[in-house]
């Protein structure tokens, strides 16, 4: 098996546009997918739960990365958009009796509409000012989640059933793994395709140089709103999956803290990178679990560590974000590129 082609032997532009270029990368992609299909059967429920949370985080992080990483529109309201998706889906399924597989995309669309409304200020506001405007969105939506009780059941929380499609109920972590996995893979493919085609180029153009984008014929308002819509759509999907997984949702699940966690994901993973969203999501979900595991093993010798676990967790979060901003501002995706570039020529990297 030849490991790598050492040159460009492509004879058509179509070949040049294929995502996975070499036999090698295709092979590993398929191997990875097969691995994903088989491995859950050998994992216990706790690990599966973590995997599912990672899957949901990937979908949400992809959404935020399209908006903030690719289009350059910072959003501090992503957590609230997750909430809208969760409540919309819960309301559609529990109160209106709409089947889950229709309710989930509908929840996405409803969230997209909210996203577009709160994206309107982006036409006039940039950077810090837009951050404040989206922060307002966060608080307005939080207020709505508490006070629109007929829909959300307020602070008491809303009970949600496990989703079922055609009589098949996703009532175990294992079954849910496949549901989330499928949606996460679809979301990844969709996002990747968007950023390499016309709309995605318009997004990046707006981020890099909005004046020339406009002069080249890009309708800034339309594409900023589209970015908000798609970002919120994915947030809505993630929220919907989340709601039906944890089966009880309250407004406290969708606070500003969640928004910041998602921002941290794309900063650590890599702004403006699809694979970066995935790395960031994996990292941010795994980190507290690893810390919890560590504090569990250490609690034998240092009993008080359990008491201050929450504080340690926040502290380590903050520290890691600072370390990333200083040493790897382009995120894990950039590091990944470097590693790949190194191994491409290994062992003759000169």
């Amino acid at each position, binding site marked *: 098996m030849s490991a790598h082609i050492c040159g460009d032997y492509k004879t058509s*532009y*179509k070949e*040049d*546009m294929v995502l996975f270029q070499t036999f090698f990368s295709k092979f590993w992609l398929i191997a990875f997918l097969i691995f994903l299909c088989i491995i859950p059967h050998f994992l216990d429920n706790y690990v599966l739960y973590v995997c599912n949370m990672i899957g949901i985080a990937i979908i949400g992080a992809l959404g935020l990365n399209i908006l903030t990483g690719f289009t350059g529109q910072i959003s501090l309201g992503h957590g609230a958009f997750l909430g809208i998706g969760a409540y919309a889906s819960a309301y559609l399924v529990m109160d209106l009796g709409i089947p889950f597989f229709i309710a989930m995309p509908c929840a996405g669309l409803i969230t997209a509409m909210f996203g577009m409304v709160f994206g309107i200020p982006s036409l006039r506001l940039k950077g810090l000012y837009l951050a404040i405007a989206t922060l307002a969105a966060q608080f307005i939506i939080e207020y709505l989640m508490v006070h629109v009780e007929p829909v959300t059941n307020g602070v008491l929380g809303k009970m949600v059933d496990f989703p079922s499609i055609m009589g098949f109920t996703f009532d175990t972590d294992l079954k849910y793994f496949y549901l989330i996995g499928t949606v996460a893979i679809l979301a990844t493919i*969709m*996002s990747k*395709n*968007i950023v*390499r*085609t*016309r*709309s*995605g*180029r*318009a997004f*990046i*153009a707006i*981020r*890099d*140089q909005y*004046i*020339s*984008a*406009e*002069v*080249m*014929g*890009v*309708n*800034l308002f339309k594409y900023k709103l*589209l970015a908000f819509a*798609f970002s919120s759509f994915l947030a809505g999907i993630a929220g919907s999956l989340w709601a039906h997984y944890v089966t009880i949702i309250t407004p406290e699940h969708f606070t500003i803290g969640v928004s910041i966690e998602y921002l941290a994901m794309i900063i650590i993973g890599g702004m*403006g990178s699809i694979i970066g969203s995935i790395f960031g999501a994996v990292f941010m979900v795994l980190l507290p679990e690893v810390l919890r595991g560590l504090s569990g093993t250490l609690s034998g010798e240092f009993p008080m560590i359990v008491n201050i676990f929450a504080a340690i967790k926040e502290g380590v979060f903050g520290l890691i974000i600072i370390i990333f901003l200083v040493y790897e501002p382009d995120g894990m995706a950039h590091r990944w590129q470097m590693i790949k570039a190194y191994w491409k020529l290994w062992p003759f990297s000169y």
Partner: protein
Amino acid sequence: MGEGKTASAPQVILEAESVSLSFGGVNALLNVGFKVEQGDIYSVIGPNGAGKSSMFNVISGLYRPQRGRILYKGKEITTLPPHKIAPLGIARSFQNVELFKGMTVIDNLLLGRHIHMKSGLFSGGLFFGKAQKEELRHREFVEDLIDFLEIEHIRKKPVGTLSYGLQKRLELGRALALEPELLLLDEPMAGMNLEETEDMARFILDINRERDTTVLLIEHDMGVVMDISDKVTVLNFGELLASGTPQEIQENPVVINAYLGDEDSVFLAGRAG
């Protein structure tokens, strides 16, 4: 297209009618009017701060003048937003390179094809059938452009890593990707060495002749301006000083006094002769 130069009564492609633009109390443009004929290379010259770039910004819709009108092919475009002016066939480059630094050369040029493409968010996300074919078709167009500009070797490089001269050339390419009928070039030779300047002049002449593109040019390099322009307009402190052929402008005492200067004009005459 293309009858401009040969027809007996040349068509006016762009007309500025007594355009005035002020920022606060400062007059950037005062009653500026000129006509650009189809197929010409039309240069706008003048000292720094004369209002040349402001004029370009008015034409491309970034600024809205307080008074006056801009007519493109007889249609008023003064109040149109920039993204509606581009599809009419007007493209421009910027004085300070304003490329999309995070994108590759190919993607920058493909963004120039934006108005010629149709696929939306959803079809792009599926990347199947029509959207894929469309990407492919425009990729071919862009590759022709890469060939024309002789930048094959950098086609997949992120723009931020390129040298200044190449960035300038790429910005010209991005404007060309729009297939404009009127091309506004804001100091395309600024900061270039002699070789790069000559390359750029050659590209501009090629674009003008082979692609039937009218070129409106702002440039400080008088040698180039006088060599390649069909018409020259001089701005000074926001006001129009003179318009005419390069020869007329070089001999115009007002222009010599205000801008070219005596020694310069001697130098130019020597170069032209």
